[in-house]
């Protein structure tokens, strides 16, 4: 028998596999494809203070080994989340991690308070790294702002805080350090890599938003490197690793690099059942390699002898 459970702060996950924010809706969309109660947790789409309409279309285009997206954080806002999304998800025995996005520290604090009071989630993922909205990255490139934000949130909630980092920086360490010192319980990485695509025939950008965020298999080497670097710097801070995870083997690679949990994103678009296959794949790997605790994998990668 293998033990798949892992912890992120006080949050217990029955297995290390969660959904990547913005790729699994609010769970309801996927309930007729996936048994939600099998997931480690459902991480829902970024939620903001007011409803957001997001960017014009085209919003998603294919690129070699991945996709670019510029959704622009379309969501129904916190009221809609608490009145509609939460009650629906509560039908299932699965922890909810809500991904929060705002323009200011006040926005984030307001959202955290509302959700904490309403019991609208088991953990908060703080998205300071969306590349597709103005100011979306101010926090993610500035350790001082990151420290202020997470400190403020730490004061208003006891829910586990998971700070989601942007890969579009020279080094993630200063940002991660700020979040850790401010009391984040975990870190999630990576968000998407800023990119663009051009239609040579039309001589226009392919995305209405011009730039978008790159995700999918193509980003895996960069994501693995960043998870490994951050884990080395902060070995006691649990990491939710993501970026191109398509199957159980990819997930194991992220855990070996230092991730305590993993998130499945773009894979769900190609294979709606991907998140379940990743769980099964990890279990098969543990059995085949005679590993009893999934946590033994975390950071276990070594250099070639």
């Amino acid at each position: 028998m293998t033990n798949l459970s892992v912890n992120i702060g006080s949050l217990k996950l029955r297995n290390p596999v969660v959904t990547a924010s913005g790729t699994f809706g609010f769970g309801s969309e996927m309930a007729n494809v996936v048994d939600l109660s099998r997931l480690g947790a459902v991480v829902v789409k970024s939620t903001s203070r007011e409803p957001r309409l997001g960017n014009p279309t085209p919003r998603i285009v294919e690129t070699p080994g991945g996709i670019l997206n510029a959704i622009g954080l379309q969501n129904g806002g916190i009221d809609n989340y608490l009145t509609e999304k939460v009650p629906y998800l509560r039908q299932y025995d699965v922890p909810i991690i809500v991904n929060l996005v705002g323009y200011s520290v006040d926005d984030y604090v307001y959202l955290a308070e509302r959700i904490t009071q309403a019991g609208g989630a088991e953990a908060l993922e703080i998205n300071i790294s969306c590349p597709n909205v103005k100011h979306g990255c101010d926090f993610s490139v500035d350790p001082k702002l990151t420290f202020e934000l997470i400190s403020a949130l730490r004061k208003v909630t006891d829910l586990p805080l998971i700070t989601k980092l942007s890969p579009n920086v020279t080094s993630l360490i200063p940002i991660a350090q700020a979040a850790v010192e401010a009391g984040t319980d975990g870190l999630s990485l990576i968000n998407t890599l800023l990119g663009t695509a051009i239609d040579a025939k039309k001589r226009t950008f392919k995305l209405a938003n011009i730039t978008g965020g790159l995700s999918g298999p193509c980003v895996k080497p960069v994501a693995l490197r960043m998870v490994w670097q951050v884990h080395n710097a902060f070995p006691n801070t649990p990491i939710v690793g993501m970026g191109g995870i398509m199957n159980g083997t990819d997930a194991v690679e992220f855990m070996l690099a230092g991730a305590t949990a993993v998130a499945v994103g773009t894979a769900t678009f190609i294979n709606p059942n991907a998140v379940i296959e990743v769980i099964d794949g990890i279990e098969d790997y543990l059995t085949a390699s005679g590993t009893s605790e999934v946590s033994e994998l975390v950071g276990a990668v070594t250099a070639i002898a």
Partner: protein
Amino acid sequence: MPVIQTLATVVENQELIKDHMVMICEAPEIARQAQPGHFINVNASTSITNILRKPFSVFHADPATGRIAMLYQLKGATTHGMSRKQPGDLVDIVGPLGGNVFTIDPRPNAHHIMVGGGYGVPPLVFLCERLRESGFAGDITFIVGARSKDLLLCEADLANLNVTVRPTTEDGSRGTLGRVTDALREIIDERSAVYTCGPTGMMKAVGEMSTAANVACQVSLEVPMPCGVGVCMGCVVNVQGASHVRACTEGPVFDARKVIWS
């Protein structure tokens, strides 16, 4: 309604007209559930530059045989990948997808008018089949448009359904010379119930003509659908009273009066 992901066995995969093929495969679960307007998400690309599934309307679905058919035009990586499948090969499909499909006008004396062009024709052929299976014996007219006669689709399928087929060709090589709207104009009246699928420009014109004639018209929109299951927000369209609704889950079929054509 559960969404099925399956490796379906290809039974038949043949060219219908130039650059258009029909693939028949075994997918009992999907065949049982599929209705006209539903689509199937196919993963058949072998190109590293196309990693997403692509949507294809259900052309036929037979719960008895457990088989479904898709009619596809050769365009890019997915459709070329589909074209290489031999009988016996497996094809990776997800379906049936679509939150809102064609709903049949219940009036017994209704005159059901299908207006289709290109690969918009197959879902409407499926709708005619289901109309007849439901016991409807009244009038069905199928206006099928194409540039010229060798591009007209599915006339054979319609022959057996006691459907009045009105081909229109832009070069007059067959049927009415001109656009589908030229044929629609001649027959649309208060008995009409219009269903349309095809090039966006065509659907817009058909929708506007129907609305002007105060006739209900259902349009099946075509927009890129990265996920097809409602989670990516990549397929959004604007409709009266609501911005950025998902075409995959609120549609693909919409009331023509509600659609805001961009």
